[in-house]
């Protein structure tokens, strides 16, 4: 089956989830109570804001991941044909990975990979 199967799968997932949630809505008799809407924080009222400005450290990971993942994509076509191309491709990969590794070391030295 072709790419259309993806549509089928998405539809199946949506149908399954919706069916489950709807079924539980049908079966259930819910009562209204303001306490039910409180966020869970170990049984005591929340202190302060929940949605705070988050430490930028978290986003560094996303950035670094993006860089590395794009590099990784470049490697896929290379990997398919490396056996045919022989040592030339290997040297190429060494250079490529070396640059990548240098970038990685730089990020590491700068402390971008430390959890805040």
């Amino acid at each position, binding site marked *: *089956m072709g790419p259309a199967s*993806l549509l*089928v799968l998405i539809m199946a997932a*949506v149908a399954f989830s919706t069916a489950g949630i709807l079924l539980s809505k049908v079966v259930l008799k819910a009562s209204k109570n303001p306490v039910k809407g409180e966020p*869970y924080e170990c049984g005591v009222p929340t202190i302060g804001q929940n949605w705070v400005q988050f430490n930028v450290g978290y986003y560094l*990971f996303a950035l670094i991941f993006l860089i590395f993942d794009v590099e990784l994509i470049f490697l896929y076509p290379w990997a*398919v044909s490396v*056996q045919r191309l*022989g040592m030339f491709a290997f040297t190429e990969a060494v250079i490529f990975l070396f640059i990548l590794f240098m970038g990685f070391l730089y990020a590491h030295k700068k402390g971008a*990979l430390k959890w805040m």
Partner: protein
Amino acid sequence: MEFSLASIADSIDQWLNAHCASWLALTIEFVIVGVLCIGLFAVLGLVLIMMERKVSAYMQLRLGPNRVGPKGMFQTVADTLKLLVKEGLTPAGADKFLFNLAPFVVMIASMLVLAPIAFAKDFVIWDVNIGVLYVSAVSSIGVIGILMAGWASNNKYSLLGAMRSGAQIVSYELSAGLSILTIVIFSQDMSISSIINSQQDGWWIFKGHIPVIISFVIFIIAVTAETNRAPFDLAEAESELTAGFHTEYSGMKFALFFLAEYVNIFIVCAIGATLYLGGWMPLHIGNWEAFNHIMDYIPSSVWFLGKTFFLIFVIMWFRWTFPRLRIDQLLNLEWKYLLPISMFNLLLATLVAIQGWYF
């Protein structure tokens, strides 16, 4: 004729095409595929949760569930019913749209990865020619659902859990991708079916020896982290964040997260079995003709499921043995150990492949 899922699928296809218009046949086939996938989801959920409970129970000197049904086999069904009649609460301050959307995203992500998996010989939904690339691309959609869930809940635990899992999943994506690359180098193809076919005379874990074994270990560690399983279950670390990103979810919405987690385990283990253990390929040893012949009699779907469940068991074994890592150690492990090692291993694999040092 021996039992084979592919032949059943073929005969259904022929029968439908003979009796209906081709568009109708196609629609019916789609419906069948959809229903089968939903069925697979439901069955996997039930089986894997039961398996997890029994594995944990035996490791912990317990009996595990043993009251509902024979040997407690229907315990999960009972729990599903319980979750069904539970109220799905939405916190007052939550972002209602994202909060309700998140379980769908997670479900869709795990459903989509089913497409290129070969469940048996010639039995695959869509044998896309960039199979492994597709898998690594689609499997990371799930993290968006988790981030959505954590952010929308308006709960601090959820928020922290979501941020953790964001950093964690994207980090381990890299070493998982690099270990998949190792196999691509050896098999010279990205489609799942040709990777399996390249293992006809032996699984890659045997043929590719050192570099493949290293990449297999890294792959298992990385996918354990990617599926948020202990010892990498920081997104829901219950002793720290009570339930992490799904703290506020209850009832069926929680069940969907739960189900998606288990289906994800199945999927990554299926990928692992396909790449390293030959997918549905039976075990063949050199030129022991008699032995190989007996192995051929075991249906290919049984081979596939057997390997997959073995890997699932290994991942469960991890969970019930190890303490949880701390978040900075988790990232240290990835950036300091797994990534450099897998980069080096990639070069080693290339060398081995070019020089033809594999069997």
